[in-house]
């Protein structure tokens, strides 16, 4: 009997595993999950803008989202998985990076590295705690339990009054300050993150890299301006005054 001695027997990890746990594979996963999260952040802001169209528009938008039922839960679970992967692979990279440079320079110099890049883990963890607070505040509604019972009439139906809840939520100075700080750190995180993902995925060259960096910074600050406009409009300019009784 003739048996082949060729590569029919493979030992060790399979090619997919080799890629995922290589330096570049891990970075690619962080950047792909990052893209998904940036898209979510943009979509979420567009939804939030319904507040400027009045109580009915925002409540209708919220009602439409909730009526998705199982699809909404699928999206929520997918987002959760994305966040978990993003953080898990970052931690793997961080652990290796610390081991790769055990001894710091005594005379240290930042050498062109930006403060945004150097604070990615810190800004990311602060954003994570901000997201958890935000979910407790407006989604689970445990920060202020009175949010649970805010109802209003919309086309003859009884729906949750999201508009009144947001207006009431942003009537407190510490909450508004917390949101602005959380969003500021998100901006920090994105101004390095968005430009980095092009480099990590290899959609780059020497000429276009600086354009990406500029575009990332502009997008990050535009998101900051868009998001913070809502608590500031409510708290400073009295948007929706009288909606929250």
């Amino acid at each position, binding site marked *: 009997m003739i048996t082949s001695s060729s590569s029919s027997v493979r030992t060790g990890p399979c090619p997919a595993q*080799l890629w995922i746990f290589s330096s570049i594979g891990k*970075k690619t996963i962080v950047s792909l999950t990052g893209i998904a999260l940036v898209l979510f952040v943009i979509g979420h802001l567009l939804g939030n803008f319904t507040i400027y169209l009045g109580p009915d528009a925002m409540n209708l938008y919220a009602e439409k989202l909730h009526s998705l039922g199982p699809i909404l839960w699928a999206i929520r679970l997918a987002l959760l998985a994305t966040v978990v992967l993003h953080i898990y692979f970052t931690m793997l990279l961080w652990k290796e990076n610390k081991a790769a440079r055990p001894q710091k320079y005594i005379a240290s110099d930042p050498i062109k590295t930006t403060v945004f890049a150097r604070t990615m883990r810190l800004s990311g963890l602060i954003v994570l705690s901000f997201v958890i607070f935000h979910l407790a505040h407006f989604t689970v509604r445990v920060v202020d339990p009175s949010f649970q019972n805010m109802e209003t009439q919309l086309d003859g139906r009884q729906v949750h009054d999201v508009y009144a809840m947001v207006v009431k939520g942003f009537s407190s100075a510490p909450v508004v300050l917390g949101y602005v700080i959380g969003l500021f750190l998100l901006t920090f995180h994105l101004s390095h993150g968005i430009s980095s993902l092009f480099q*990590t995925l290899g959609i780059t*060259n020497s000429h276009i890299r600086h354009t990406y960096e500029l575009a990332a910074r502009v997008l990050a600050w535009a998101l900051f301006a868009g998001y913070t406009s809502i608590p500031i409009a409510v708290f400073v300019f009295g948007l929706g005054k009288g909606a929250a009784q």
Partner: protein
Amino acid sequence: MKFHLKVWRQKSCNAPGNLEEYDAENIPAEASFLEMLDIVNSQLTGKNIEPIQFDSDCREGICGNCSLTINGIPHGKGRGTTCQLYMRNFQDGETITIEPFRADAFPVRRDLVTNRTAFDRVMQAGGYISERSGSAPDANAVPISKVIADEAMDAAACIGCGACAAACPNGSAMLFVSAKVTHLGLLPQGKPEKNRRVLGMVRQMDEEGFGNCSNYYACEAVCPAGVPASFIGRMNREFTAASVKEMIGLNV
């Protein structure tokens, strides 16, 4: 000129090290940084102190053997290697801190001398081409466009000194590896091993304990050959493409 030096002294690979202070006196402004250390060493020898050990070879900026992190910057401030750094670029009476290149994959052998053979092993994992040996091939027998030749030449400028890994807060060697992958992969002579090369070299780089790129771009700022960090992006996409080919069972 006169300088106050703080120099990393370490007896051997596993011995603890520390900064020792020395005064460098009567240094001509036109002396290179390495010549300044030569003068200090001859003064130390006169005082029966072990001379400071450091790497150097060609002293004309092309071999990549000299290292040194000067005031926290590999090869010191300005473009070029340590041997091309002149004392006139420092203030008279300045305090200068000199440390070895730091990265887990570059263990210190003694004082300022580090073991950079990890780069040799990365090269052995794919940094070569298969070419007929014997008589030299005809010049211009293989047409290469000017654009490709220029880009390959930018990558080939890498002298393998290790400043990129030493400057990187993550001890990542990606600028070095991407320069080699780009230089050899762009040219027709290096095309046959393109996929195998990037897979082999990146895996060896990971194996050696170099860190991962966080896009800090400190590497490109200190690179004496001016290798651009966009080559890292090119390597990332080539590595993923080669991995996908491997995953679907193509020969690489």
